C-alpha cells in the first residue's frame, strides 16, 4: 500500500499552493513557487485511481515520507515545509 496516494498528492499540491500544469502523456506537473522562484515540482499521474501510488513525491519536495504525508493530512503547514527545505538549502 502506497504511503502517498493520488488523493494525498492532490492535497499536497493544494497545501503547497502549487500550480498544476499539463505535463507529458502520463503526468500533470505541480510547480511550487516561493519568493517568485520555482523551488520544487512533482508529477501527479493523470488518469490514475485516487489510491494509486505517488511515493516518488517526498523526494521531489525534499522531505521524508512522514512529513509528506503530514503535509497532505494538514498537521504540517506550507510555512513549516518552507522552513524544512530552507534548512536543506533548497530556498
Amino acid at each position: 500500500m502506497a504511503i502517498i496516494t493520488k488523493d494525498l498528492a492532490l492535497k499536497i499540491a493544494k497545501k503547497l499552493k502549487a500550480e498544476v500544469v499539463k505535463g507529458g502523456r502520463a503526468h500533470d506537473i505541480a510547480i511550487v513557487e516561493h519568493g517568485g522562484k520555482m523551488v520544487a515540482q512533482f508529477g501527479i499521474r493523470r488518469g490514475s485511481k485516487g489510491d494509486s501510488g505517488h511515493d516518488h513525491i517526498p523526494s521531489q519536495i525534499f522531505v521524508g515520507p512522514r512529513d509528506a504525508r503530514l503535509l497532505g493530512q494538514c498537521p504540517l503547514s506550507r510555512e513549516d515545509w518552507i522552513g524544512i527545505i530552507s534548512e536543506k538549502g533548497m530556498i
Partner: protein
Amino acid sequence: MEDCSVGVRSGRGRAIVAGWPEKVPGLMEALAETIGASLRDVTRIESLEKEVILLKNRVAVLEGQAPVLVPIESLAPDPYEIIKPFHVVVRVQDGECIASFFDARISASGDTQEEAVFNLKDMVVSVFDILCGRSEDDLGPGPAHQKKVLQDFIRRKD
C-alpha cells in the same frame, strides 16, 4: 551384519538358525536402531526441505524488491534526444515501483517497473520543458540544479 548361515540346517525349504531365540533381542535392537536412524534422516530431510522452501520464497521476495538499474538511451516518441545515456534506478517500495534519475533528482511511480520507467521518461521531458522555459533567476537551487543536469543529458530535437 551378523552371519546367519552359521548353524543353519535345511528342511522342507525352511532355514532354521541355531540359537535364534538368543539372537532376537540383539536383532530387534539393531532393527530399532536402523529404523530410528532412518526416521531421523527422514525428519532431517523434511526439515531441510521446509527450510529450502522458506529460503526460496525469501529469495523470490528479495529479488522482487532489489533495485534494478535501467539504461535510458532513447526518449522516443518525444522529440528529444539523449546527449549522454543515463541510468535510472527502479525499486519496489510498499508494493509500488519507483523509478529515479538521481542526478537530476526526478522520480516517478508506477504499478510495474515498466510503467515506472515510462512515467519517469515522461517526467524527465516534461520537467526539462518547464525548466528550459524559465530563466535561471526564476529557479530555486533544486530546479536550477535539475536544469543544469538535464541539459547535460538531453536536448530537444531541432
